[in-house]
């Protein structure tokens, strides 16, 4: 299966829907082990990204992903703005001139995204950050050969839930030390909604 420009546009739209629907929940998660702005930040950023994309007609997936990246970068703020911005920028670079996007291209993009996130955030797996979701998804994508809606959503959910038992060593949650154990990482939850949106697009496509 391949994803065309319309699918990528739909992905961003659906991601926005998921984030908006779970804005309060994300904020609650961030109140537990952060400063309580994550839902607000992500909702503001994705709203703007979706609006920006709705304004235009795209012929290249890379452009959609780049506009998303730049909008997140300039509208989200906080730790998550530059991080999600980086992830989508890397996806965009990988997609450049590759329309429609093959499974392999998408997987390459994911790998670049994970590298970018780790570099920006100076974080690695197991530190209870969104890296945990993106990295597990990359591993999963690498071991498969095609998009499977149901397992994408399942895997992302599991990766998010796995952060619950971790102790944070990066970001604000790290100030809480042991007390950070038992809460889901907010950035991982947003990441889950993004992959859940992807799963939806894949399903619709199938």
């Amino acid at each position, binding site marked *: 299966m391949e994803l065309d420009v319309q699918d990528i546009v739909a992905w961003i739209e659906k991601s926005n829907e998921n984030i908006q629907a779970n804005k309060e929940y994300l*904020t609650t998660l961030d*109140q537990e082990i*952060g*400063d*309580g*702005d994550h*839902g*607000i*930040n992500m909702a*503001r950023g994705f709203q703007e990204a979706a609006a920006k994309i709705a304004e235009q007609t795209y012929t290249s997936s890379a452009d959609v992903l780049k506009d998303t990246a730049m909008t997140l*970068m*300039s*509208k*989200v*703020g*906080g*730790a*998550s*703005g*530059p*991080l999600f911005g980086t992830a989508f920028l890397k996806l965009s670079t990988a997609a450049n001139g590759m329309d429609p996007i093959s499974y392999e291209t998408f997987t390459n993009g994911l790998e670049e995204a994970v590298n970018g996130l780790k570099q*920006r*955030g100076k974080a690695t797996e197991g530190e209870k950050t969104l890296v945990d979701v993106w990295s597990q998804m990359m591993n999963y994508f690498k071991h498969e050969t095609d998009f499977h809606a149901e397992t994408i959503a399942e895997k992302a959910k599991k990766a998010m839930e796995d952060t619950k038992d971790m102790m944070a060593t*990066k*970001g*604000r949650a*790290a*100030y*809480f030390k042991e007390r950070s154990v038992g809460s889901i990482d907010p950035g991982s939850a947003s990441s889950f909604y993004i992959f859940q949106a992807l799963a939806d697009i894949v399903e619709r496509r199938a």
Partner: protein
Amino acid sequence: MKKIINDPNQVVQDMVSGMAAAHPDELKQLFGTTVMVKKNAPIANKVGIVSGGGSGHEPAHAGYIGKGMIDAAVAGEVFTSPTPDQIFEAIKAVDSGAGVLLVIKNYTGDVLNFDMAAELADAEGIAVDKVVVNDDVAVDERVSRRGIAGTVFVHKMAGAKAEQGGSLEEVKAAAEKTVQNVRSMGMALSPCTVPAAGKPSFQLDENEMEIGIGIHGESGIERKVMTTAVDIAKELTDKVLNDFDFSGNVAVMVNGLGSTPEMELYIVNQKVQSILAEKGITIYKTFVGDYMTSLEMAGCSVTLLKLDDELKQLLDEPSQALAFRS
């Protein structure tokens, strides 16, 4: 949530325009941004100083704009680091060719966004450098310590050095020396409410307090039974003193987090001063007031800055910032 606001999502925009309207002789707002810049910036041959961070810490950061202190302040959303594009606008607005120092508080978000802005500036050939403030001893490891009220002293020292005509390297060195010699510790009696969130970040009982609080409405390192001003002053001051050798001369800041009456801050100060006197530490200057706040949080922090001759002299230089006149 009870606040004197219009739209919870517009508080930063509304605040920034209200601020620009209040101080037309001192400040200007960069068009289409929430960046506040010194009216006459850039100043020829002077290193520019850009600070900023989430909003909700007022008078930080725009209150520190003025001759002898910083040149621009970037206001993010409430408790949310500002974005690279806005920081970049601030850098461009204050660069006179002598370079720009970024004063960053040590939060992932602030570091990431300011770093990206620095990369953008670099690409345009603007000389930028940075210091990262990490004065909060509530966090054990130095590398992950937050920047809190000590940031005000960093603004002061860097600003004075820049005003004296220091090069970017020298201004950075003064700022860095301040960072190395400043430590803070805070506590809270009550949480605060981010307007867009609509509910307080945590709950505290009538007899509880949070020790080791940051400035973003997050809960602290330890929850304790509420006690007297003397005990609170002692707990905060001891923690700061145990972290660093402050023998010699110090500047003291007793900072209110937003809704603590000045009366209470002075009551805390009374004990802070007596602890320092007992230890034979000389107090060169004391600052009591709301310098780095968390919206309407009740609580305070104690900051000590060890002073050598250079820092004393920089502290004594005049400042015309709205929130820090000397």
